[in-house]
């Protein structure tokens, strides 16, 4: 297998509505930023790997077909990846695997969502005759799972509120974020409207427009770039059915297996000690303590202790900061959200994460999940090959 590295990272400004660009303009902007970052022109790209969340969101079916032009794909291979909310992560991994396999030497990968032109809640609430029509979007699906986590772990009731504040404070260091809330308080989150009890408004991700892109190249080409290559030390994906008897929805097996795989590839046996930071898909506050356990940063039932002790907080000098960029709780262009996690992990390792940089970060985890918490994509990136 060839070594592969991230050599260019491009993001757009994330906003509730990017009225200044079409979907094509949005993806082009991220791609151009990634090429500029890599010091390359469009001709340097051999193939484009694109991803987004379900087509029903914007109602544009097979958008990749019309986006080929905006992404310079004329005369080049283009592939679409689709794994629901985890798609940003799995698209990056599909792109990386094309380089690792030697199929292409340098690829561009792009993901996006334009939620201002979409209706995700409607798209996720289709009636089916074998079930009552009670699907109240993603929050309605995940709320009972969070409630069960609260029961089993005995976590303090305000653990979720702490995550909501922590990620927004992190996010205020990142000028690309949709939500900018540098003055947010625990009280403000607590008093925000309840949406899907136990999830409050400020414990939920926003709906954002945005795109994220990366250039991934093989060893020879990676060393030619203007910036230090970020080496992909491991990449893994797993899936499992949404529903089966005995399924642990709080701590899904597919997530544990995916983490074990990516850590084994990267030579990690103690993620809390050996990783310097992590960008993890936390669209609702309680998913931080849940994923701390699922990803092996804490024993089962004890993830909330890391959150409450400030271990995951940059502002509190935590030993394993999570979502220094602000995470999904600050910007959520759904299809891109997973790739933003992967890209932000790479920025940390490269040392150019600006005001949300973890000093001396060398190795980081990027994570995404999707569907009914049944699709997982993860990578570990490092300055060391």
């Amino acid at each position, binding site marked *: 297998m060839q070594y592969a590295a991230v050599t260019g990272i491009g993001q757009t400004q994330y906003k509730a509505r990017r009225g200044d660009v079409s979907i094509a303009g949005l993806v082009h902007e991220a791609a151009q930023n990634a090429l500029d970052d890599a010091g390359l022109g469009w001709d340097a790209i051999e193939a484009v790997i694109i991803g987004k969340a379900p087509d029903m969101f914007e109602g544009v079916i097979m958008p990749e077909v019309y986006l080929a032009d905006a992404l310079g794909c004329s005369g080049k291979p283009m592939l679409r990846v689709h794994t629901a909310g985890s798609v940003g992560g799995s698209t990056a991994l599909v792109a990386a695997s094309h380089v690792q396999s030697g199929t292409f030497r340098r690829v561009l990968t792009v993901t996006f969502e334009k939620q201002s032109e979409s209706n995700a809640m409607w798209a996720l609430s289709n009636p089916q005759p*074998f079930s009552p029509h*009670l699907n*109240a979007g993603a929050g*309605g699906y995940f709320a*009972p799972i969070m409630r069960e986590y609260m029961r089993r772990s005995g976590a303090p009731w305000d653990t979720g509120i702490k995550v909501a504040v922590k990620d927004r404070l992190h996010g205020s260091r990142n000028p690309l974020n949709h939500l900018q809330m540098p003055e947010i308080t625990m009280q403000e989150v607590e008093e925000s409207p309840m949406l*899907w009890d136990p999830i409050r408004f400020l414990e939920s991700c926003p709906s954002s427009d945005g795109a994220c892109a990366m250039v991934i190249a093989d060893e020879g080409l990676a060393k030619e770039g203007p910036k230090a290559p970020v080496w992909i030390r491991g990449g893994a994906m797993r899936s499992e059915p949404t*529903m089966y*008897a005995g399924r642990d929805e709080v701590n899904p097996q597919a997530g544990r297996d995916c983490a074990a795989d990516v850590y084994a590839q990267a030579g990690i046996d103690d993620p809390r000690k050996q990783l310097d930071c992590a960008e993890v898909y936390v669209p609702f506050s309680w998913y931080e303590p849940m994923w701390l356990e699922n990803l092996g940063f804490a024993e089962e039932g004890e993830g909330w202790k890391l959150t409450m002790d400030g271990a995951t907080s940059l502002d509190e000098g935590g030993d394993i900061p999570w979502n220094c960029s602000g995470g999904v709780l600050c910007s959520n262009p759904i299809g891109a959200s997973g790739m933003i996690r992967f890209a932000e992990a790479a920025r940390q390792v490269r040392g150019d994460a600006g005001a949300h940089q973890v000093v001396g970060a060398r190795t980081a985890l990027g994570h995404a999940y999707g569907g009914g918490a049944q699709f997982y994509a993860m990578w570990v990136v490092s300055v060391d090959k």
Partner: protein
Amino acid sequence: MSEETTSSEDDITAIETPVYLTYNFTAGEATTRFLHQVRKGKVMGQRCPGCGNVYAPARGSCAACGLPTSEEVELGNKATVQSFTIVWIPIPNNPIQPPYIVANLVPDGANISFIHLMSECDNDSVHIGQRVEAVWKPEEEWDYAMDNIRYFRPLDEPDVPIEMIGKVPLSGWEGKA
């Protein structure tokens, strides 16, 4: 572009062009049987020949074992709350008014939950392990739909211990371990 043109014409940034979709639901063997039974006021499950777990509504296979399920099992009218959420926002295309409770319920005799509405209850007292029973619509309104059950309401029975949730037999739960 002249100054006059830019000042008299606003940018066109969006025009709403709705798309409408009509689905024909193909139920397949297992769901066809389920829907025929639910039209007669019965909730049926199917047992996996491998792990023995009972699925309801059955979709024709056990996703854990990868085996087809064919043995039909009649389930009770009673169920247990596995978890729930109190929803404070409306559901698209559903007239239900918030706040309402959507619960993950395991019917007696089954080993997996489905979601349904809970009503005739104090929202603040709903809890994991609580016993509930189905309240059906009048028979003349029954159709091929899970909506034939209007909602579930609390029962005056002892809570099911956590480790027993998802394992209550058809004979029910009377507080016996």
